[in-house]
């Protein structure tokens, strides 16, 4: 049974691709067969974050247009055997995606026996974002604790509840999860940033993970290693918890409070 999960947000720059890459790695590390598909046609990023940009020969649009087979386009991750990447096309635009084409590729991935298909949605609510969510069974809505991101997520949740196949067919709709990223407990405490509870209350949904703001995320992106693979990082542990919760585990939330600084750190800064 394959589950299709869309990672979406409405707003750009909140961490959709970072989340897609880390959640895909996290699921694959737990032995699941995972395909992660970049729907951001024309602004290909996922392959960079996954560190396979130099191995992209064929892409999603090539498969849709029949230039190659799905097998030729799927890039096997070098670190985790069960993880595969389908890159977006950098040279086309979003009109190259069609509903039938997307359906065909997803069906082929399902027939191939993948456990999870992660759809990394582009920002916005246009065609690319619509097609990324249309066939989803579940949605991870990535949100930053600030008002514009929360507003856009509310909009996306409205679309998930109305413009998806599951919503149209009325079979229970898409299961929605919130994932907070760039969470800074210190700024929350000082009232500069919305808290987890604020976001939960406004959007009326449960939170599947809270990823603290961390320099490791940028470093990981630049290195092409999804941040979840950096075991030293809080962001990695937070993503790993989120993956566990996606799989049904019940874990307490971590990293909601500022880490206590040691005596010497307080004296000498750092």
């Amino acid at each position, binding site marked *: 049974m394959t589950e299709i999960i869309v990672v979406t947000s409405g707003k750009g720059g909140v961490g959709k691709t970072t989340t897609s890459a880390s959640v895909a790695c996290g699921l694959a590390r737990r032995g699941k067969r995972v395909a992660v598909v970049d729907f951001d046609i024309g602004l290909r990023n996922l392959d960079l974050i996954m560190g396979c940009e130099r191995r992209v020969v064929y892409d999603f649009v090539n498969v849709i247009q029949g230039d190659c087979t799905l097998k030729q386009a799927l890039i096997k991750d070098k670190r985790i055997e069960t993880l595969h990447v389908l890159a977006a096309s950098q040279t086309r635009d979003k009109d190259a995606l069609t509903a*039938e084409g997307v359906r065909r590729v997803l069906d082929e991935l399902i027939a191939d026996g993948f456990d999870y298909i992660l759809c990394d949605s582009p920002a916005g609510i246009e065609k690319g974002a619509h097609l990324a969510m*249309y066939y989803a069974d579940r949605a991870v809505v990535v949100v930053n604790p600030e008002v514009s991101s929360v*507003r856009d997520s*509310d*909009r996306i*949740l409205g679309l998930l509840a109305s413009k998806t196949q599951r919503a149209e067919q009325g079979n229970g709709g898409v299961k929605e999860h919130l994932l907070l990223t760039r969470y800074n407990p210190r700024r929350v405490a000082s009232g500069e940033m919305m808290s987890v509870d604020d976001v939960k*209350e406004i959007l*009326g949904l449960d939170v599947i993970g809270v990823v603290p703001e961390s320099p490791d995320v940028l470093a990981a992106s630049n290195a092409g290693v999804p941040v979840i693979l950096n075991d030293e990082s809080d962001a990695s542990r937070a993503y790993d918890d989120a993956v566990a919760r996606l799989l049904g585990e019940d874990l307490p939330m971590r990293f909601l409070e500022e880490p206590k600084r040691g005596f010497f750190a307080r004296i000498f800064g750092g």
Partner: protein
Amino acid sequence: MMTKPVEAGAPAPAIDIRFGQVGLIQVRIRSTEPGAILDELTGKVASAPLFFQRTGVCLDMSPLGRDPQLEEMRAVMEAVRRAGMLPVGLVGGSGAVESLSVALDLPVLAPFRPQTQTIPVVQPAERVEAANPALMQHQPVRSGQRVYARSRDLVVTSTVGAGAEAIADGCVHVYGSLRGRALAGARGDISARVFCQEFRAELVSIAGVFRVFETLPPELAGKPVQAWLDGDDLRFAPLTS
């Protein structure tokens, strides 16, 4: 909104039916003398041609104080057209307007409230409609969504998000927080009210009388609140338990 539905599975529908509000200019007719109408309107159009040229207008015959004849109406419409405006409807009210609308093939638009004191806005027929069971909305009304309860109350058991619209011809009840817009009495029922459990609204309107909340008054913010129409004034008060 997504303007172009993407072809997914079934062919895209040829039409979308949406509830939308547009501002519309009213021409209140005090005399059916076509010459006088043409003269006055031509002057107005010339004063702001970009604004008035080919603009849709609806004709309000109530200031005339009597029901015009069909031929009279045709002459009035011709005068309005020659002045450069396009009649798109009649303001409703009496039964005569209904029959004129059929003969002229123009829709009857709901009466605009403040201008039509002579016509009772709440008609007996709407009283009966108010007995309709409320439209229940158990899912949150999300930003960009719009829920409309036609000829009845709207009950939202969840929240109305910022940028969302909850609209009813009757009352609007929100048992979560109201962060978006609530419009009660959408077709002119001045007795309609808005109730909510947690007031954080952007806009509240009753029978077209509205108030925008750029900042929330501290005595209302976050509280259970009701809004009602007192004459032409929109009033708000916390619901005391």
